C-alpha cells in the first residue's frame, strides 16, 4: 500500500487531482457576489477538462489502450 501519509495537515504532498476534487467540488457552496457559476458544475468541468488534456499530454501512452501488440 502506498501510505505516504503525514499525520497532520501540514507536510502533505498532495496530488493535484485529490486537492481539486475537494476545493472545487467540495466545501460550503455559497453564492458570492462575484459569483461566476462556480456553484454550477459547468465551470469546474471545463477546468477539469483542461486539466485532463494538460496532464494527459505529459503522460506516455497507456499500453492497455494503446493499440494491439
Amino acid at each position, binding site marked *: 500500500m*502506498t501510505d505516504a501519509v503525514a499525520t497532520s495537515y*501540514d507536510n502533505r504532498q498532495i496530488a493535484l487531482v485529490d486537492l481539486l476534487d475537494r476545493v472545487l467540488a467540495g*466545501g460550503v*457552496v455559497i453564492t458570492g*457576489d462575484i459569483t461566476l457559476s462556480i456553484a454550477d458544475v459547468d465551470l469546474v468541468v471545463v477546468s477539469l477538462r483542461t*486539466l*485532463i488534456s494538460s*496532464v*494527459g499530454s505529459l503522460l506516455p501512452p497507456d499500453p*492497455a489502450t494503446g493499440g494491439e501488440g
Partner: protein
Amino acid sequence: MSTDDVAVWLYAVIGGEVADDRTGELTGVDGERVRHIDGGDLSAIVGTVHLDEFGEEALRRNLENLDWLSVTARAHDAVISAIARSGPVLPVRMATVYLDDERVKELLNTRRQDFLAALDLVTGRDELGVKAYGDLAALAAGGNSAPQPAGEKRSGTAYLMKRKQQLTAHEKAHSAAAAEAERVHATLLRHAVDGKQRPPGEPAVTGKRAWTVLNGTYLVDRNRVPTFRAAVAELQETTIGIELEITGPWPPYSFTGDVVSS
C-alpha cells in the same frame, strides 16, 4: 478596471471566539494577509484580493489555466488547513468572492444556523480519502485468459478471438473490481461517521495506469483515525488485484456542503 479594485475572497467559516489567535500570519491566494470578519459567534476567514486577477472575468479565464489553478488551489487549501489545525473549520468552495465585508457579515447572519450545525458535525473529526486502484490483469486472472502463444502469426480470425477473450476478461475484471470496491466502502463506513463515493476521475488525471475503482472519502472521529487506518491496511492484505491509497487528514471539504446548501 483599475488594478486598485478589490473584493473579499472567502476561505472558511469558524466559530468566532478565538478568531484572532487562529488566523495568525497566514498568506492567501493573492499574497494578501489573511484576516477575519466577525459576526456574533461566527467568523469568516477572508482575504482582500484584486479584481484584475480574482474578478469574475479574470476567474473565468484563470480557472482554465492549469498553473494558476494549481497554485491558487494550494494556497486556498493551505489557509484552510492551517486554520483546521487549531479547531473546527468549514471550508468554503474555492472562488467564492464578495464585494465587501458588509456582505460577508450579512452572510454570517442569515446562514448562522446552518453554519453552526455544520460546525457541530465536523468538530473533532477529520476527512480521510481512500482510493482503490484495480489491476486489470490481476483481477482478470481469476478467469482463464489464455496467453497468446508466442510467435503465432496473427491472422484476422486469431485477432478477433484474442479480442473476444480480452473483452470477456475485461468484463470479469470489472465486476470483480466493483464487488471489491463495495466491500472496501462498506467496511470503511463502519469506522466512519459518514462516507461517500465520488466520481473516480480520468486515468489521465490520476496519473495512474491502474484503473480507479473507488474514490471514497470518509468523515472520521479523530480518536478513531488509527483504527480507520488499520482497517485500510487490513483490507489491503485481504484484497487481491486492488491497491488502496489513503490521503489526508483533510479539512472536512466533502461533508460541509450537505449541511450548508445554497
